């Protein structure tokens, strides 16, 4: 099962070469642009790293390889950074389970402490995106700007208020309701699955804070118009009208008609 899943994800040789060439050219610039991210906010001790390694070997190595070099069942984690571990394990996506085009979220299986230890281990292998600083996660930014950025960069996949959207081949951009500020930030940083990476040159940390602020506003303020029907737009509205609106009225007409006979 796992194998088939992976084979379908493997790209043809030509594409790999093109991407490799592209990386070669853009890599330099990218390294400069993202260098801010890669300096870890917290320095990890050797002890933490070895604790993290133990957890990793026990829980993750079966898929990601003993040295996180990757295997048929999971990609290499070298250079994905602590942010990626925090996102993947912290949202319950990892340790992976089941198969399909996109691994589903489950209940989180590790404590924050354990997650950060595993993050420390992965970060020690190679530099990668670090856990974001708390000051960008307070939702104290500019919601208007955040909303604008969200509509331009995120809404095409996640829907205008993050109520989910379909991608191709059974993949989807999930509903963002209930996402923690930290995970929103990290998602932009690492671009899980089909989601693009929004690095700091693209959307600055302050911009990311604005987006978080906008999403927090939506979460805290239910629609002024009443129940929201899942924020799914006209389809939900149309179904509601046919089933409950017209349905109710037809039921009343039937009742009226029956009474008069």
């Amino acid at each position, binding site marked *: 099962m796992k194998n088939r899943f992976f084979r379908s994800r493997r790209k043809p040789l030509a594409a790999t070469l093109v991407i490799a060439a592209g990386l070669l050219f853009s890599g330099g610039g990218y390294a400069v642009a993202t260098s801010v991210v890669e300096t870890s906010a917290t320095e990890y001790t050797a002890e933490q790293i070895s604790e993290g390694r133990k957890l990793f070997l026990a829980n993750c190595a079966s898929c990601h390889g003993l040295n996180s070099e990757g295997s048929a069942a999971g990609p290499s984690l070298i250079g994905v950074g602590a942010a990626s571990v925090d996102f993947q394990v912290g949202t319950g996506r990892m340790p992976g389970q089941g198969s399909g*085009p996109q691994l589903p979220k489950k209940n989180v299986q590790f404590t924050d402490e354990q997650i950060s230890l595993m993050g420390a281990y992965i970060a020690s292998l190679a530099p990668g995106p670090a856990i974001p600083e708390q000051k960008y996660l307070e939702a104290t930014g*500019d*919601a*208007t700007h*955040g*909303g*604008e950025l969200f*509509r*331009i960069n995120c*809404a*095409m996949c996640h*829907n*205008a*208020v993050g109520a*989910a*959207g*379909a*991608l*191709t*081949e*059974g993949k*989807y*951009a999930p509903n963002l309701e209930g996402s923690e500020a930290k995970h929103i930030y990290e998602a932009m940083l690492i671009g899980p699955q089909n989601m693009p990476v929004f690095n700091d040159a693209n959307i600055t940390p302050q911009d990311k804070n604005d987006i978080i602020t*906008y999403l927090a*506003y*939506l979460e805290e*303020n239910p*629609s*002024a*118009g*009443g*129940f*929201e*029907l899942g*924020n*799914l*737009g*006209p*389809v939900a*509205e*149309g*179904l*509601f*009208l*046919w089933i*409950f*609106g*017209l349905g*109710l*009225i*037809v039921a*009343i*007409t*039937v*009742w*009226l*008609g*029956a009474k*008069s*006979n």
Partner: protein
Amino acid sequence: MSTTVETSKQGGALAATANYLDERAGVGGILKNFGRKVFPDHWSFMLGEVALYSFVILLISGTFLTFFYQPAMTEVIYDGAYVPLKGAQMSIAYASSLDISFEIRGGMLMRQAHHWSALLFVAAAGLHMLRVFFTGAFRKPREINWLVGFMLFILGMAAGFTGYSLPDDLLSGNGLRIIDGMIKGIPVMGTTISSFLFGGEFPGTEIVARLYGLHILLVPALILIFIAIHLFMVIIHKHTHYSGPGRTDENVVGYPLMPVYVAKAGGFFFIVFGVVMAISATFTINPIWNYGPYDPSPVSAGTQPDWYIGWLDGALRLAPSNLDVSILGYTYPFGVLIPLVGSLVFLGLVAVYPFVEAWVTGDKREHHVLDRPRNAPVRTAIGAAGVTFYGVLWAAASTDLIAVFFQMSLNHVLTVMQITLIAGPVVAYIITKRTCLALQRKDREIVLHGRETGRIVRLPHGEYIEVHEPLDKFEMYKLVDFKDYRPTVVRPNKYGKITVGTRMRAALSRLYFEDRIAPVTQTELNEAQSHDHSPAVSAPAAQDQLTK
């Protein structure tokens, strides 16, 4: 004259007013005539009323909205109550729609009532249309009124679409962009038409004001005129009724319009009004503040039109997208043209159906007694095929949501829908026709032998029989009173030629009436009764006597 004066003295103010009007405008005569019109009772006859009342709600709420809405595309900086848009640049149209929602007292309720009743208007009209179709109410003399009703449905779509675009939010802008794309897809003239409509390059600065003119003036005026014609024709033709004792093609059975029916209808208006208001007060519709101001670059996931435009969006989604053909320097995007032409053809077929059926049956009689759908198997089957076709297109407008919520691949959903669009109507046609015939056969059985009671009785000589309960007169009427058509025979015309038309007509007629179950005749009924063991089948007269 003198007698009227006397009554007015007795009747008080109301009667006095009536008399005043009568003496000057002869209203009395009209009212008396009008009041004596009869309207039969059946729930399905109230669907048109629901549409009418929704339109009244649209007029009331729409008028409220015009007081505060400003149809201008000039850019302003928003400084209203909705925090996540404060300081954003947007058109006056959008800003004023936000103000209606957040600042005008009762504005949100009215906006939502306007939009919910718009959805209800078209939905009720659509259901009403289906009722008319499946009961054959469009037959002579009501073919023209079918066309008027059809126009009302189209105008409802037009009103909805023009209104949907007024708030100038991202969602409606995306909708306009799609229309713009479709128009530009029209060969040769597309670009010219588009820049004519939008006053230049899309989106321009004109379109909202233009749509506003259409939305509050032209389209509602046309709807009003068509409603007037529609109702006038209903009064002239009188309403149809379902078959029953004493109901024939020559009469109408029901309550007189005055006062019973009008009182009922008035009450019913408030029921519809109440339902719409209750929904509008509790459920958000079109949260324009979520979508943000229109900006040509972003398109959100879940961008869909209102339900009544959905089937057109679905057609665009299902059409193959890689069929651009270049001829003589013009590109013909068939991914756009097929849905465009296809939907027009579909609407055209809906519009002309009554004429086609009349031609096929060759029936020139007037019909005031409705068909039960099963008694016109092919018409019902065609209707079912049409509903399936429309339904698949409609569902196709939400392929993305279906994919997310049923965790399917978007690509698979599309392919399945494409196949269903073609195969679905055929399957629906066959199943429906067979079901109708089976139901007719069952009816025949019931008429001839009564209803099965499940009660087994042993007769003195040892034979067991199941007791069949005879039908009462009302049920009997329902089951035997329908027209029986036979396929037309190809006959040469007066020049001794068999024209292509005649052949086509014969072929269609065969399609319609080859498989048919004839209604029970009196002879058959008598025979059944004399043979029947069950003692109790009394002899209600069958069709021949009933309808006269």
